[in-house]
């Protein structure tokens, strides 16, 4: 109460507040106290949903990871706590570390390819004439809009062992051993196709985004650079690149998240095969947990996966959180 009387009456916030309540309310103070609750009431449904549908599964995941939960316990509905046994088993096993390393490499290669290609395509868009730019843009949007499951199926067909158009082309180009090549038969070839698919799907987002960013660069900057005698390469490194840096950071961050958990592409293309050699962490958690019915183990892998993802994105996350704090 004292706070309110101490505040200067002409503060812009206060004026707005009394305006909002409108005239004719008997007790302005009580009304504004009730009014102060309004934003929380408006946010209440969203918060309830988040706690129940996101917070609860997260917590449940952590709880499950400390339980011995296999087929038997699942059927009998019993809860057997086993402390950190799941974590011990996962972390001392060779599999987990191999899959983690594979996941990180997979993410790194895909993100790097996507970002480099996406940035180049974005810069190309900026250089093109109007009609050509529109055409390429439509192509990019088409690839971008393609639903993941449909795209994966199409890539299975493109890379099909028999009658697949990729094998046919390679054969015609003189690489005859590829005529009947089975792309799902080895680890590297499976990853190759999945990588092509992911890069194909992810480049449009980066390119269009980056192109949009280049259009916001004030042309005075280029003029100034030209006056200072900068060539096209120099004006690129001194004007374009610094200007685009925040966009590059932001898109890299998003791509890391998206590609790291690329469950659908890897799983539907080859189910993590051959011989579980293309399992990345989300697929590994799924196959261990649901497929092999070691639910507790799967939950422990899931928790570790989330921690790894947080670790991979921590650097950028810190920047974003700080930025957001400054902005608000």
């Amino acid at each position, binding site marked *: 109460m004292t706070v309110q009387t101490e505040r200067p009456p002409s503060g812009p916030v206060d004026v707005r507040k009394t305006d909002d309540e409108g005239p004719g309310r008997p007790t302005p103070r009580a009304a504004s106290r009730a009014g102060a609750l309004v934003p929380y009431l408006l946010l209440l449904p969203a918060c309830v949903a988040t706690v129940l549908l996101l917070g609860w599964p*997260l917590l449940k995941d952590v709880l499950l990871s400390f339980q011995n939960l296999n087929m038997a316990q699942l059927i009998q509905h019993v809860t057997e706590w086993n402390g950190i046994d799941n974590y011990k088993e996962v972390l001392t096993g060779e599999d987990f570390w191999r899959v983690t390393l594979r996941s990180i490499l997979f993410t790194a290669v895909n993100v790097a390819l996507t970002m480099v290609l996406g940035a180049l395509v974005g810069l190309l868009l900026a250089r093109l004439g109007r009609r050509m730019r529109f055409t390429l843009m439509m192509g990019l949007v088409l690839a971008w809009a393609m639903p993941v499951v449909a795209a*994966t199926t199409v890539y299975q067909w493109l890379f099909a062992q028999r009658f697949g158009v990729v094998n046919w082309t390679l054969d015609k180009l003189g690489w005859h051993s590829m005529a009947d090549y089975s792309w799902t038969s080895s680890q590297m070839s499976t990853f190759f196709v999945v990588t092509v698919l992911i890069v194909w799907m992810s480049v449009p987002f980066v390119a269009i985004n980056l192109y949009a960013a280049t259009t916001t660069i004030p042309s005075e900057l280029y003029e100034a650079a030209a006056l200072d005698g900068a060539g096209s390469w120099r004006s690129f490194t001194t004007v374009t690149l610094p200007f685009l840096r925040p966009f590059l950071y932001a*898109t890299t961050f998003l791509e890391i998240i998206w590609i790291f958990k690329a469950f659908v592409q890897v799983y539907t293309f080859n189910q993590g095969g051959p011989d579980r050699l293309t399992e990345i962490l989300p697929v590994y958690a799924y196959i261990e947990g649901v497929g092999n019915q070691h639910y507790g183990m799967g939950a422990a892998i899931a928790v570790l996966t989330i921690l790894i993802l947080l670790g991979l994105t921590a650097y950028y996350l810190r920047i974003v959180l700080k930025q957001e704090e400054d902005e608000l």
Partner: protein
Amino acid sequence: MKRSLFGRLWPNVTAVVLFIGCVFPVYWMFATAFKPTGDIIAENPVWIPVDVTFEHFRTATEVEHFWTYVTNSLTVTVLAVAFSLIIALAGSFALARMRFKGRRGFIIGFMLAQMAPWEVMIIAMYMIVRDASMLNSLVPLTLFYTMMILPFTILTLRGFVAAVPKELEESAMVDGCTRVQAFRRIILPLLAPGLMSTSLFGFITAWNEFALVLVLNKEAEAKTLPLWLSSFQTQFGDDWGATMAASSLFAVPILILFVFLQRRAVSGLTAGAVKG
């Protein structure tokens, strides 16, 4: 600055190559779907479907339960988008227009929620749904899909609400509208484009969702289209015509939505995604 012929040529040539690279898989999907089987399993690919046939579409849609899958997918997707829009509209209005303690905390919270690794949490979600005896039901799917798209919807709508000039609302209130009326008559109509582009994103996410429905709904009555599509190839062996017809049917709604809302969708999605 005059550029050499080569300097003018290579960007266009590269663009054409890239365009083909982008479009070819989509084209090949449709082309295969319309080609007779003889042309699909030809020694040399038939690049342009000459004898158009709808046979593969018939095979794909005559699969048992096909229409159940369609109804399920539509129900779940539309409901999830509608719920999240309603919930988000209220929340984003508070975040964009009001000052209150903890506002920043809420925004950061939703930003983090947007990153939630759903694909990894399916075991926990399976346990929760099973303990509630709700396996093979559309209810948990709808609820989880709502949550998957909710953070993005709130954060994007916040931007759209903030972009509506405050003065419009204030003058409506001066003219005797209550705040709720001002919202309904002034802000809501102006929000239409924002609502469209955010719901497009939500639609895509829910329409595409695969990992959760794969684990939760094993019975045909409760499956959705992504499961139908992914099971196709194993079910039909090497019937690529039918598989591509199925893919086309699955992709067409999204492709149409995207092309129609292209402009808005792109700017909305990029703005929302980059700004968190």
